[in-house]
């Protein structure tokens, strides 16, 4: 076959404080579907962002059709013929199909002053015909199905004369029949010599559509294998990595059997489907799953941040009516968002305010006057107990490190006497040293009788802390594992299990 379409070698990328990619390689032949797999944070997206000019590599070389190339920005990638279909589609909903296809490069007439709508439509029909898509170029994009919108994105990339097409989780939002249609288009593209990078977590899909699979883990290249000859178990084993298995696991003491929270038949749109489970007192219940599995949505629905379509929440044996986080907090539920800065903290305000804000009514006299001294004392107690590193309680929280910000949020719920705590990615954006501290804190809280739901994408974290593990995939709970029986492989298998 000679020189591949794309060859990336020794790719390295650093972000402040993190080595995101090191020694990464990737190859793509013309007319090939090459799957790129790995856990969340394995570096797939970063690698592809380097190929599409979103990030600049710090080391390594990229060859395109045998020529070494530099891809300093997204435009350069487009000019080379490298296109990407993102998970979130980039179409403008109120414009028509044709307008979206040629946005920014509309054909013009009358000395370039007027748009040439006839020509626009003619070109759109031409490109849509290439993939045998039956869609009116004058249709508004917002009136199309997600699947059709995705096709439009593919057509758009092709109309830029792309020879490399990167698809990031293209089937995440599609139904089974739509996936069949997508695969038809992919096969057609393949036949015409387009090279396709296919990023997905769904093993059965990879088996069906891809020719080769490259596995990445922790920012490193692991291996490239031919799809046909490689069993799924081996791919998963490469994704999670054997050595992690040996890591010491504090086998958690199992909590009591007293049910504190029970969720029955929770539904919300496509994100949460018939979710039911129980949380026991003093237990850490891990919820594992891949990105977009609906874990955060379950948490937000329980907490009242979003209204569920249906379902029942029972707290300490009583049916709870939670219509707003305000109701949930009164029932003793605290939620720690994965995005602390946006949803957890009043960034500009000080540590004292952030710790006390959920409990203000406790610190006021009947006149509404605030007892500042007492608030200060309480905040100081939390700072000491949680070992929050801050020069004082009047320090704005925006100056604290990620780990200390997380502790401030924990302190907020402790002061509020919440005994059901939902941690969503408790160690995201927190450096390694502080992670251990957060783990110790979670264990201590559980030992003190707090009941904890912990959502995490990091399997070692889930395995280390959880008494029980629920695994979600596409809005459903696809399995429950006990702490003793759980392995990364078992979790990954459940996490990629479609339509259980």
């Amino acid at each position: 076959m000679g020189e591949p379409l794309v060859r990336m070698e020794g790719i390295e990328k650093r972000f402040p404080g993190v080595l995101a990619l090191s020694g990464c390689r990737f190859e793509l032949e013309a007319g090939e579907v090459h799957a790129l797999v790995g856990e969340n944070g394995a570096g797939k997206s970063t690698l592809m962002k380097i190929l599409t000019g979103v990030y600049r590599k710090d080391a390594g070389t990229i060859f395109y059709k045998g020529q070494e190339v530099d891809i300093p920005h997204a435009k350069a990638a487009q000019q080379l013929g490298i296109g990407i279909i993102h998970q979130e589609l980039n179409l403008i909903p109120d414009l028509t199909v044709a307008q979206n296809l040629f946005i920014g490069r509309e054909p013009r007439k009358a000395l370039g002053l007027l748009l040439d709508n006839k020509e626009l439509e003619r070109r759109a029909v031409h490109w849509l015909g290439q993939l045998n898509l039956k869609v009116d170029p004058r249709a508004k994009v917002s009136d199309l199905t997600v699947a059709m919108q995705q096709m439009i994105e593919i057509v758009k990339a092709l109309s830029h004369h792309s020879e490399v097409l990167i698809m990031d989780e293209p089937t995440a939002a599609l139904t089974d029949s739509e996936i069949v249609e997508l695969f038809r288009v992919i096969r057609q593209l393949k036949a015409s010599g387009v090279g396709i990078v296919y990023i997905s977590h769904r093993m059965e899909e990879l088996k069906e559509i891809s020719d080769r699979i490259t596995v990445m883990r922790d920012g490193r290249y692991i291996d490239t294998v031919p799809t046909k000859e490689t069993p799924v178990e081996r791919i998963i084993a490469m994704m999670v990595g054997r050595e992690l298995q040996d890591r010491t696991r504090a086998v958690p003491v199992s909590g009591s059997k007293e049910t504190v929270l029970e969720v029955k038949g929770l539904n919300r749109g496509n994100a949460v489907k018939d979710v039911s489970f129980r949380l026991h007192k003093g237990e850490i219940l891990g919820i594992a799953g891949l990105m977009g599995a609906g874990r955060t949505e379950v948490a937000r629905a329980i907490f009242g941040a979003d209204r569920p379509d249906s379902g029942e929440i029972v707290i300490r044996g009583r049916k709870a009516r939670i219509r707003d986080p305000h109701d949930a907090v009164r029932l003793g539920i605290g939620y720690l968002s994965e995005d602390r800065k946006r949803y957890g903290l009043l960034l500009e305000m000080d540590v004292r305010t952030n710790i006390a804000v959920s409990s203000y009514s406790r610190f006021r006299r009947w006149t509404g006057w605030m007892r500042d001294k007492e608030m200060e004392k309480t905040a100081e107690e939390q700072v000491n107990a949680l070992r929050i590193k801050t020069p004082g309680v009047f320090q704005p929280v925006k100056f604290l490190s990620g780990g200390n910000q997380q502790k401030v949020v924990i302190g907020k719920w402790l002061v509020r006497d919440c005994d059901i705590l939902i941690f969503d990615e408790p160690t995201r954006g927190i450096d390694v040293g502080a992670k251990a501290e957060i783990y110790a804190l979670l264990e201590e809280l559980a030992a003190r009788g707090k009941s904890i739901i912990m959502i995490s994408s990091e399997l070692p974290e889930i395995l280390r802390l959880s008494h029980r593990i629920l695994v979600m995939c596409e809005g459903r709970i696809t399995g429950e594992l006990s702490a003793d029986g759980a392995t990364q492989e078992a979790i990954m298998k459940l996490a990629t299990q479609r339509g259980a």
Partner: protein
Amino acid sequence: MELSASATSRTAALKKAGAAQKLLAFASLILLVVFFSLSSANFFKFDNIIGILLATAVTGVLALGSTFVIITGGIDLAVGTVMTFCSVIAGVIITFGGMPIPYGILGAVGAGALCGAVSGFAVAYLKIPPFIATLAVMMITKGLSLVISGTKPIYFVDTPAFAKIAMESSIAKLIPGLAIPNAVFIYFGMAILASLLLTKTIVGRYNFALGSNEEAARLSGINVRAWKLAIYTITGVFSGVAGIIMASRLNSAQPALGQGYELEAIAAVVIGGTSLSGGKGSILGTVIGALIMSVLTNGLRILSVPQEWQTVIIGGVVLLAVYVDIIRRRKG
């Protein structure tokens, strides 16, 4: 350790920057006073200074109320017409109804609270953007004032005591010669009340929390909607008080008045360093802002600058004040 030390100095720097802003506004005020005093012998006279303070009272009280809403990150365009509506209500109760003055005052303040609550309900519960919701309330109250009054001013003819609320000088009875009208004291009294509400009570704390990050506040279990309603209601109460001062000064309720006052109030708040994006602000700043506006108006008038040009200059000052605030923020 090193890290926390640098963080401490940063906090200190931040506090300094905040103080610097207030100092800057205050220094500008002093500078203006000095400038006008040197330019005209008529400026720094007891009567003129009292005149300035008296002129500040109405927009000043409106600005105090507006500060609360603006700190939530919202806006209240209705404060001017709500003020008028409240004075009309006072007129209806006292002149048309023949009831005692205190009933009129209570009615006016109550009407203000109600109008504020309507805005607050629309914003917090119906999720209508503050700009639109309060624009609607502005038009509604403007119309209602005209309807209720029959488009004619209501004079407080039978109750001469009503005019004394704002214009008499109670203090002159205690200290002869110190003829400062009550309106000035009412203004400063309301300022102190507003400042305490904002910095010392639970409403004020929630006010800042909402303005700082409303979604985080909601996810902290704060009943955001209820508190927002309360805050708009407070703004309405201040409009009610402004309505009483206005009516007492004019000894009548003028139903056609009111529109435009909201913009002056907002300008005063902004000049005082309260951020329109919410979460930051102070009553002291708003008081200084309102004083800067009336000192400018008064001083320019004494220097015989035509009124049209006064407006142009004040517009420039608003631009300058906001720009200074932006620069400060960028550095912070």
